[in-house]
């Protein structure tokens, strides 16, 4: 009797279990499928305009024809300058937080500041970039001002990724070095950084991807809707892929339907390829542990 009762209860439980599991699976799928469908549409409608010329020609006829060369190169400029500014600061901050920072109010304040740098709306970063770099420091609307704005905004990405990979290096290695009379810095340089450099690189790739896709922070600080020439230096304005997509899809009349799809497709491919690289890199590293 009791045996029998337990069996039906078991069956019932198993059925509920299956139901719950399927329900959650469906929710996951519903989250992902629309995006995959959307990507499919983007590819289907954007692919026809893609060609070698699309990438290497400048926009013509008021941006209704031609390619996206100036915008592509502009994005490379902006991303490069932003990286030069943010990677050293971000890595230094992560080294401080992981290797030096005592557990005190200042460290808590730094962590809170990092969370907030990541959480402040991008348009507020844009206002900051305008007020600080364009106006106060007098860089004008330029690659420098746009890149510094993005550098501040994406700093948390580098800090968090670097700190994580530094902390993945076991503490025992550090103590072993200290006990041999190595200074903190010697320990970091000879043992901690060499074993976390790939993790840091993963974070930098993520930052590149994020920097390349941002629009609002560069709209008023250095990216221009249209320029017929390439920037010659960091004090020039430039076109950028993200802003170009905004402009051709909202500001320019008589754009052929497929053109913005092509721009979107190139932009999203850049971003996703970089993210995929970063993920692949991480998986590769996880499988290749050195201890």
């Amino acid at each position, binding site marked *: 009797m009791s045996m029998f009762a337990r069996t039906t209860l078991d069956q019932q439980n198993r059925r509920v279990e299956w139901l719950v599991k399927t329900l959650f699976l469906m929710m996951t799928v519903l989250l992902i499928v629309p995006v995959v469908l959307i990507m499919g549409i983007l590819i289907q409608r954007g692919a026809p305009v893609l060609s070698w010329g699309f990438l290497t020609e400048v926009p013509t006829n008021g941006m209704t024809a031609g390619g996206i060369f100036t915008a592509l190169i502009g994005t490379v400029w902006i991303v490069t300058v932003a990286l030069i500014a943010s990677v050293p600061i971000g890595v230094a901050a992560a080294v401080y937080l992981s290797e030096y920072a*005592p*557990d005190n109010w200042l460290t808590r304040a730094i962590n809170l500041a990092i969370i907030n740098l990541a959480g402040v709306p991008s348009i507020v970063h844009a206002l900051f970039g305008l007020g600080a770099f364009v106006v106060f420091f007098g860089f004008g609307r330029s690659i420098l001002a746009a890149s510094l704005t993005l550098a501040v905004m994406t700093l948390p990405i580098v800090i968090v990724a670097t700190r994580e990979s530094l902390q993945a290096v076991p503490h*025992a*290695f*550090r*103590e*072993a*070095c*200290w*006990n*041999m*009379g*190595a*200074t*903190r810095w*010697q320990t970091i340089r*000879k*043992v901690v950084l*060499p*074993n976390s450099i790939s993790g840091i690189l993963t974070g930098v790739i993520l930052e590149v991807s994020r920097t390349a896709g941002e629009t609002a922070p560069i709209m008023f600080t250095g990216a221009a809707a249209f320029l017929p020439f390439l920037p010659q230096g960091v004090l020039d304005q430039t076109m950028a892929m993200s802003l170009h997509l905004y402009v051709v899809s909202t500001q320019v009349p008589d754009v052929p339907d497929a053109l913005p799809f092509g721009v979107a497709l190139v932009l999203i491919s850049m971003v996703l390829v970089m993210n995929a690289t970063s993920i692949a890199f991480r998986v590769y590293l996880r499988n290749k542990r*050195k*201890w």
Partner: protein
Amino acid sequence: MVDATPKLSVRELSVLYGDKVALDGISLDVLPNEIFGIIGPANSGKTSFLRALNRMEEFDTNMTVRGTILFEGQDISAVRNVYALRRKVGVVFPLPVGLPMSIYENVAFAPKLAGIKKKAQLDDIVERCLTRAALWDEVKDRLDALGSLLSGGQQQRLTIARALSQEPELLLLDEFSIAVDPVTTMRIEDVLKELKDEITIVLVTNLVQQARRLADRTAFFLESELVEVAETEELFTGTVKDQRTRDYVEGRFG
């Protein structure tokens, strides 16, 4: 031996982690060229004692050290270059730590920090230290292999070779045999007996018999306090004063 100045003079040493007392007012001397054993149950303050000798509180903001430690008459809390102090003091941990670099680099690490650059000289140090740590024969053909991927016993001998490479005057061993097989343990014990002629050794051990085999004098730590210090044989032949020491040595608790 009797009138030698102590290698280490510890007076009223206390170690705290936050509010927690790990070591409470210890005073003892370690003489040159002796093996000084420290026994006691877990959490009796043995490891904290070793950490204080190396001024590890510098890198652990939670750790507070009170009292004085004289290293060859020098108050270590007044040492301006703590790294020079640490170079004179080699440490071997309970769990072996092979650094994630080649075996060769593991052993050449400290000499390089000390400014030795010549390859021949480094080669010489690496071979000598690995030989002394009874590891040379096993690894001489693969010095490029990662030190962190050796077996536990090998890593522990590598750690000892590394501690020797900095030419310490004082070698601290913290329960080195925990992660090591008995054969390796015996080999390392033989190495320690030989080393005694050149350096001073403080041996923290959870194995009472290991202290008996190796130590000249032994201290018994219990609940953050030093119960007593005695010639090792006295501890085991029952001539000690304190009943708790006798109970521990005879295995009535631990």
